[in-house]
């Protein structure tokens, strides 16, 4: 009898533990409710709605199904391909200049004992200021007649370009601004990773008689592969979405002569000044695909594990 009682008690106990586990499982979902409400409403729904819209002719109120016509419109549109070209042109040079330059400066900062913190603060400052304010300042800094850049160029006898006033140089004005704004980020990420390389490797090389430059070339650079890959990917994702600074410098159509209109600006122009939601959605999806393909290729090329 006593034994039986004990058994019953034991099974009762295990049932209540199980029940407790179940209820506690549910409380975990409550923790996630706000975030997943956000994901469903502001991520999942828009992505699918955008896809649907790309098959419709729509101005926000009237919708007609037109199949793939929007995609045809976008893919045969000169301004669209021009915006793709501009986006890639600015992005490529921004990345090609900023990553090596930022890495060199990060290495210099890392190897000087004096003023490390001071340089970190100074170099990173442009990155925290809003790109909108930065673009506004650069319109003056790069002004052909009264800007400081051309003043300095002329002072040392170099030709002074017209920068944003001339379609053939305006992209370089945006590139300069982009390099200025992004380099602090590159430096900080490089610094964090430079300091993670083990000191033992350098010591071993020193014993073998490697010079500072040799250590940098054969130990530091190979060890930074992952960092460069990360910067390449984030750099591309940012570059492909470029909008803020080109809008401030050239308006929605990227003047002069659409020379700095990016893909983002093209979408904005079609969607919110022309109210062609269908066309803009199709362009958006094409851009989204470009970003996805590019990120994937970058991941493969750089051999990075996510």
């Amino acid at each position, binding site marked *: 009898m006593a034994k039986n009682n004990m058994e019953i008690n034991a099974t009762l106990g295990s049932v209540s533990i199980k029940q407790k586990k179940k209820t*506690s499982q549910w*409380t*975990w*979902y409550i*923790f*996630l409710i*706000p*975030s*997943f409400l*956000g994901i469903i*409403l*502001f*991520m999942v729904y*828009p*992505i699918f*709605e*955008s896809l649907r819209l790309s098959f419709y002719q729509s101005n926000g109120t009237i919708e007609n199904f037109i199949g793939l016509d929007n995609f045809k419109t976008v893919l045969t549109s000169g301004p669209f391909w021009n915006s793709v070209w501009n986006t890639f042109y600015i992005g490529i040079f921004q990345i090609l200049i900023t990553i090596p330059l930022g890495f060199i*400066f990060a290495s*210099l*900062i890392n*190897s*000087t004992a*004096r*003023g490390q913190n001071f*340089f970190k*603060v100074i*170099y*990173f*400052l442009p*990155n925290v200021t*809003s*790109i*909108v*304010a930065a673009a*506004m300042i*650069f*319109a*003056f*800094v790069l002004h052909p*007649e*009264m*800007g400081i850049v051309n*003043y300095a160029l002329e002072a040392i006898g170099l030709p002074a370009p017209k920068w944003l006033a001339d379609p053939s140089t305006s992209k370089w004005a945006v590139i300069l601004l982009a390099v200025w704004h992004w380099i602090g980020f590159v430096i*900080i990420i490089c610094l964090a990773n430079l300091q993670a390389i083990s000191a033992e490797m350098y010591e071993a090389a020193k014993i073998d008689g490697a010079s*500072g430059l040799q250590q940098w070339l054969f130990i530091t650079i190979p060890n930074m592969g992952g960092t460069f890959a*990360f910067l390449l990917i*984030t750099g591309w994702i*940012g570059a492909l*979405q470029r909008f*803020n600074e080109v809008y*401030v410098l050239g*308006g929605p159509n990227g003047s002069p002569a659409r020379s700095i209109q990016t893909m983002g600006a093209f*979408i*904005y122009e079609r969607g919110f000044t022309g109210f062609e*939601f269908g066309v*803009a959605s199709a362009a*958006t999806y094409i*851009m989204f695909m470009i*970003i996805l393909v590019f*990120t994937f290729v970058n991941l493969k090329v750089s051999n990075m594990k996510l």
Partner: protein
Amino acid sequence: MISTMSHKKADKITTSVKFVILLIFGVVLMAPFVWMVSVGFDRTANISMPFPPRLIPEELSGFNYGIVFENGRLIQSYINSAIVTITSVAIGVSSSLLAGYAFSKGRFKGKKLLFIVVLCTLMIPMEPRLIPLYKLFNSVDLLNTFWPLILPPLINGMLIFLCKQFFDQLPDSLREAAQIDGAGEFKIFFSVYFPLAGPIAATMVILAFIWSWNDFLWPLVVLNNQDLHTVPLYLASFSLENGTSLGGLTMALATVSVLPIIVVYLFLQRYIIQSIALSGVKGE
């Protein structure tokens, strides 16, 4: 002996050379800021930009700043930005703390899958969501209010990720002790782990603050009413209207607009730099 001497000397020279290079490049990076402040204080710059450029204003005056503040639209945009930033940061950080904690300490079905979903959101840019979100807020008649700027930051994959990593470092034994005392999951979170989350909460607040304060494209789309413009929107519209005329005024305006971020940055730079390096994600 001689060779070590010359070696030391060479070392000293390279160190100085490095230092000088860093200093020169630092000056180049700072030049736009310095020039901006100087032109803003230059009385004559309001009529035409001083040429050749000068660092010390010819006629030092607060004239341009006076106009910037008198106009009132800058102050209005400051207030708007403050409302939007504070509320969106509060909402975003709270929801991310809850989710990050659940992903770290929780045991429930579908945890891995749900976390992958969160990570996927990191790869979804704003652009493909722009028009549907615009239509969504239009359909509930919330365009030209602050709600479209406050609600979507509810979800922020980066913050959830950072938060999960932080809670992963905290021991599970704290939970077990509290469980034995009979505390429920919410009680454990709020009385045991939440008080320990100070450092990560500060990081999240800083990151979310910078992202929200500097956000541009989405506010541009949803706020047509000038009275609701945030600081970047006011700057952009001023810049598009006036181009490169009104140099002194533009520079004074730019100075005032970047001031809060720069002040916050100079006070918290150690943490900001750390958290950016940690998260590896910048917001624009």
